[in-house]
């Protein structure tokens, strides 16, 4: 890294600097138009199907309704994975991200809270309007997963039992709450006066950013954080300290058998969002190789994940599944270093809140 920094400095020294600073707004505009808006809209459309899927499986839990619910849930997880790392603007407003999915949750806060909620048959859990004022942990996809799937990844929502009515009412409230939030997020990104305006009026300075470069840096660093989350939070806990200590239950959405869907979704999402920033023309020739290298590594990681047999709770100890995920973790570290150090260095983007700006 030190050598690379020197290279960058040397490069800067011999290059004629442009008379005006680069305007990064077109890059941000492209990201919003070609990635954020379509993906948040897709998430809203998919999530809108959840309430009917809950109603159907709760009305008659036959093979067709169970399958429909599983598909609706899985597609919602997939589309959530495409947007969850966009940790700015509409996803943060009103605590939406925590309410959509309470992650990470290594100590089982959600499970404890849901147990209490079920034991007391808390009526506030039965409508989206009152659920949204309760703890963020009991509101979202992670809560719905605990309610709707058993430990073996089978759908239990709608099964006959004394708590069926309450569980179904609560699951419906969650799904309506999710649909409402997803719609608000999509609308927020469509709103020309919303957060997109904050990103797109940064050049020359606005209340949030001094320059469009600063706005681009904030977005770029959020994508890097997405990769850190994917590796450190979503993959490493399941790998544990060795093959004999692997914990497949620690993959996000493992209970519903959607871990691969989620991991692939977030990796493809970060890759596509980075691509949508379309930074190639701003990259010095010596560093253009990074884009192919990054796409190659994303492809490797996704290929390894897609070769796994979900649900991982049942398959993670078989064959070479553990080794494949180990390679995914190594690949994610390499991707993070390439993007956060080499690409950011080549583009002269600042990153790392404490690393950059300590005291």
């Amino acid at each position, binding site marked *: *890294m*030190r050598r690379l920094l020197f290279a960058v400095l040397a490069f800067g020294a011999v290059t004629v600097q442009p008379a005006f600073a680069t305007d990064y707004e077109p890059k941000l505009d492209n990201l919003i138009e070609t990635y954020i808006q379509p993906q948040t809209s897709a998430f809203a459309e998919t999530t809108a199907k959840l309430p009917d899927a809950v109603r159907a499986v709760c009305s008659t839990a036959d093979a067709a309704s169970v399958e429909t619910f599983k598909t609706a849930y899985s597609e919602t997880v997939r589309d959530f994975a495409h947007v969850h790392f966009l*940790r*700015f603007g509409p*996803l*943060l407003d*009103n*605590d939406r*991200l*925590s309410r959509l999915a*309470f*992650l*990470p949750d*290594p*100590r089982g*806060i959600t499970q*404890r*809270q849901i147990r*209490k909620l079920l034991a007391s048959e808390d009526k506030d859990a039965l409508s989206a309007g009152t659920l949204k*004022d*309760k*703890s*963020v*942990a009991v509101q979202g996809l992670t809560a719905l997963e605990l309610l709707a799937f058993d430990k073996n990844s089978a759908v239990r929502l709608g099964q006959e039992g004394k708590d069926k009515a309450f569980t179904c009412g609560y699951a419906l409230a969650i799904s309506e709450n999710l649909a409402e939030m997803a719609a608000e997020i999509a609308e927020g990104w469509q709103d020309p006066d919303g957060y997109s305006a904050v990103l797109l009026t940064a050049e020359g300075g606005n*209340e*949030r*950013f001094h320059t469009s470069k600063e706005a681009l840096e*904030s977005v770029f660093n959020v994508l890097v*954080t997405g990769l*850190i*989350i994917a590796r*450190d*939070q979503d993959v*490493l*806990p399941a790998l544990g*300290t060795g093959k004999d200590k692997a914990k497949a239950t620690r993959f996000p959405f493992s209970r519903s058998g959607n871990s691969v869907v989620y991991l692939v979704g977030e990796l493809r999402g970060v890759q596509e969002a980075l691509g949508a920033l379309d930074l190639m023309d701003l990259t010095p020739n010596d560093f253009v190789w990074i884009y192919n290298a990054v796409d190659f590594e994303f492809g490797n990681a996704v290929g390894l994940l897609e070769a796994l047999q979900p649900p991982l709770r049942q398959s993670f100890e078989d064959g070479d599944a553990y080794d494949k995920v180990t390679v995914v973790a190594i690949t994610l570290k390499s991707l*993070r270093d390439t993007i956060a150090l080499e690409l950011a260095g080549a583009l002269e983007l600042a990153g*790392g*809140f*404490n*690393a950059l700006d*300590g*005291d």
Partner: protein
Amino acid sequence: MRSMVTKPLSRRGFLAALGGLATLPAFSGSTLAESLLSRQALEDVPLFVSAYKLENGDYGVGVVDDLGQVLARISLPGRGHGVAISPDRTRFVAFARRPGTFAVVVRPFQDVEPEVLTAEPGRHYYGHGCFSADGKLLYAVENDYAAARGVLGVYDMSGRQVQRIGEIETHGIGPHDLLLAPDGRTLVVANGGIMTHPDKGREKLNLDTMAPTVAFLDSETGDVHSSHALDASLHQLSLRHMALDGQGRAWVGGQFQGPETDLPPLVGVFSRDEAPLLTEIPTGIASGLQNYIGSVTANASGDVIATSAPRGGQTLFWKADTGAFLGAEAIADGCGVAPIDQGSFLISDGNGALSLVGDPTQPAEILARPPGISWDNHMFALS
């Protein structure tokens, strides 16, 4: 100066007030009620304080529990840095990052507005401070920038309003962190050695001649008991952050201002009457740290020291009595470190995570990642 403040809570009020709190944006992310209800002894819940930056650009100081859940957020007028916690743990003072001029006194368990302090004319805060043993006085590390000398502002905290009643010279330039020694009277100050002036922002004005020290001062007389400098070859190692070990020695983390290719020692141990000791960071690790230590913290019993190195994405652990290197934990942009108990540390990072480290040979456990928060340089155990 505007203090943007969320309503403080009584400790018992944490539970009682939840229904109302859940509707306040600042608290709606909290899983407070249930996570605390599930515990046996509410009063024993460890709490931590850290400054943060929000994604929307706002700054504040937050209280989190040992599951990493944000229980309270108090907005600050600008970027915060260190926090001084009163001996009875009922209040804390969050200082502005240098060269800021505000400090905010928070009583997190009482229903009172935080009090905003403003630095005297001609002074700015350096970001750290500490209380006297009886909690009546606050010592704030300040810059007398016209004279280019460090001072400790002395504040009377016992009245209805905080009053600045004097100052103590630190006998150095660019003081940074401050500790009260176990004798309850000696103040230990790290004079980082770097001259700055608010007219020039954070520009370093004396790198060629800087001369950092760790000084042991008598809080009652202002006398210097002793002042230790490192070897002249290390005069560019700015001595900045400190923690006391179980023997009352100050562990000090440095930030090197010399050539990037040098690999100087970065962590030393200072005591009043003995020459400083320097620890050795294994070369393979040292080369990745960019010669920068962010925070220094001791575990509850003072026999393990943690030193974070955010530019290297590593936190290093030391055996306090021997100075032996115990290992390192990789945490991207990790900087704030607080002791949870004798056996573990909570580490905060700029990507929002709060991670538990109980054993440097095991991966850190990410407990929580409150969205939109970047934890700033330091975290402190409040209870």
